[in-house]
């Protein structure tokens, strides 16, 4: 008898739960501004805040939105594509006015973009574009990974040429499911092509954007090729791993030292900035995160105003090295990490 009453109560409670849901008693998120106009709300969904670059990008976007008096709701998927899809759908439920998305990868973001498209919410991808897919509309603000990597490695090759000797090179790759990693790898080989008399690639380390894997790979490569003297890392966030491996092989020396290993990277983070200041790093390709944030927000506002927004907005970035450090460091986001 008790069991029956209890089950009955459970069914009633469950029915109330479902009924409440179907009635749809959600609240409005509209917040009028000082002029009584509806204040815009933008959802910012990042795949991860794993590295300083993503943290800097996240803060830059929020700062840009705040500057324009736009509300922000944020969501971090922590590397889970399924959770990211849920988060974007949640933004749609909240009826945000726009979405800035850093996708987990170019393919798994397609359903999320579709959800935004169906709700007529403009969506801009930050730093990682979506794969081509029929009926899917978005804009992407991305660094020209291939060009910037090529320019960085070309600078490194010039430094190699000045030494008058041939160098053995190592490339540390990112996650090959990440289109950015592919672009940087292609840029590296674009620069190397035709320069085989100066640089010979003897090792490729697949880091999968993981510092432990990068360290293990670099250590193994240095053991197999102890005379490696030219290293390009697809991201500056892997530098701690590279430095640890070089130190353990007694190969971490400053510029000017005859045993200096020519080092180059990509991103422009705080580690790279410090290595430049300390004289260990030759060059890094800097993604202009402030430009990318500004362009992302502007693309959203243009989308809301029904203006034509290009599918891809390129951030040319710039190469920073010992020669232009004083003039370029203000624009290097890694130099500003930790500052108010």
């Amino acid at each position: 008898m008790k069991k029956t009453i209890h089950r009955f109560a459970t069914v009633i409670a469950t029915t109330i739960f479902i009924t409440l849901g179907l009635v749809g008693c959600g609240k409005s998120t509209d917040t009028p501004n000082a002029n009584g106009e509806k204040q815009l709300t933008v959802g910012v969904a990042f795949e991860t805040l794993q590295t300083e670059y993503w943290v800097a990008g996240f803060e830059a976007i929020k700062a840009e939105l705040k500057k324009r008096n736009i509300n922000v709701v944020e969501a971090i998927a922590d590397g889970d594509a399924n959770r990211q899809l849920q988060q974007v759908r949640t933004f749609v439920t909240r009826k945000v006015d726009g979405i800035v998305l850093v996708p987990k990868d170019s393919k798994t973001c397609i359903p999320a973009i579709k959800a935004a498209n169906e709700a007529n919410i403009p969506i801009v991808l930050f730093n990682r574009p979506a794969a081509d897919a029929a009926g899917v509309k978005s804009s992407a603000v991305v660094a020209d990974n291939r060009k910037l990597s090529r320019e960085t490695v070309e600078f490194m090759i010039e430094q190699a040429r000045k030494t008058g000797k041939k160098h053995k090179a190592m490339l540390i790759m990112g996650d090959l499911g990440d289109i950015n990693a592919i672009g940087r790898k292609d840029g590296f080989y674009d620069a190397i092509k035709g320069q085989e008399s100066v640089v010979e690639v003897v090792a490729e380390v697949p880091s999968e954007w993981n510092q432990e894997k990068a360290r293990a790979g670099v250590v193994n490569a240095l053991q197999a090729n102890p005379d490696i003297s030219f290293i390009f890392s697809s991201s500056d966030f892997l530098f701690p791993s590279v430095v640890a491996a070089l130190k353990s092989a007694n190969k971490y020396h400053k510029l000017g030292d005859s045993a200096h290993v020519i080092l180059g990277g990509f991103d422009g983070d705080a580690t790279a900035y410090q290595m430049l200041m300390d004289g260990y790093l030759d060059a890094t390709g800097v993604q202009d995160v402030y430009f990318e944030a500004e362009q992302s927000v502007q693309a959203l506002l243009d989308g809301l105003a029904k203006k034509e927004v290009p599918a891809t907005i390129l951030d040319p970035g710039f190469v920073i090295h010992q020669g232009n450090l004083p003039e370029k460091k203000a624009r290097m986001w890694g130099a500003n990490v930790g500052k108010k």
Partner: protein
Amino acid sequence: MATLTANSIQDARPAGVTQTIKRLFLSDYLILWLCLIYFVALLPFTPGFASLSNLQTILAYLLPLLVVALGLTLVLIIGGIDLSVTSTIALASVIGGKIMSSEAGWLAGSALAVPVGVIAMLLVGVVMGTINGFAVTNCRIPAFIATLTTMMFVSGLAIWFTLSQKIGGLPPGFVMLGQKLWLAATLTGLATAAAHYALSRTLYGRWLYAIGHNPRAALTSGVPVKRVTFIAYVLCGLFAGLASILFTAGLETGNPEMARDNLLDIVGAVVIGGTSLYGGKGRIIGTVFGVLFLALVDNSLNLLGLNFYTVTMVKGGVILAAALLDALRNKLLVSR
């Protein structure tokens, strides 16, 4: 003269609010009550929480997690564990994608692409479950170690198989399995009903509990412990294969990292639902409530617009509170 019985004595006690709360607290449906209380409590503060589209979002998120959790429930009831479920999901995802993809898939454009792909994904789950079951029952490797090694191996295999690339271009006939909510819910509902029936209405289900309580006593009583354990792991793998179908169709992508970071969430949901990590205790309906609770918490914290760091801490705290309540409830039940 009226005969005093236990029931009549109980019926004579005054009902009272305290008694009602105590009864609810000690109820097998505690987690469901927690879900309802949580939902109602957060409604005034969470815009859109009870809207139809948000409930659909919650449902779409929890369905594949529930399917994996069903299989894990069976294994936990016998006192085992399967750490390889998420790797199985990933491997099934890329193999299914490789078969079905219109972008150079093995059966690209063929009418057989979807049925063969789906069968292949389920088979991957069955094969993984078979390997785990064999390792645990015949090789007598502790379940934690056996499934940890298969997790590592299969995870690497999935990434090697695709060189970390994602596989897109999945046919619409497959994608609808995850995108059409009614279809995904039907598949999940059928899987849940089957698991519930097996556990609560069949001899096999009673054997599972017996082994979980005391494997030696079960063996002495004539329970085919090895066979039952083996089948539990095979079923766990099968459910992982089915979950992979929902995950892959939902994201329209074969992904070698699919569900990689979901294992602890899934185990947590199963345990919150009342399944004991030591075996012998657990119910499918409890797992349903546990996964529902997890999905509600996740969704509500996103809707609240809290920053990322707060979300992870609050989520951990809420789930810990739920687990503590359940532990307290079990203690009170045992002491009665």
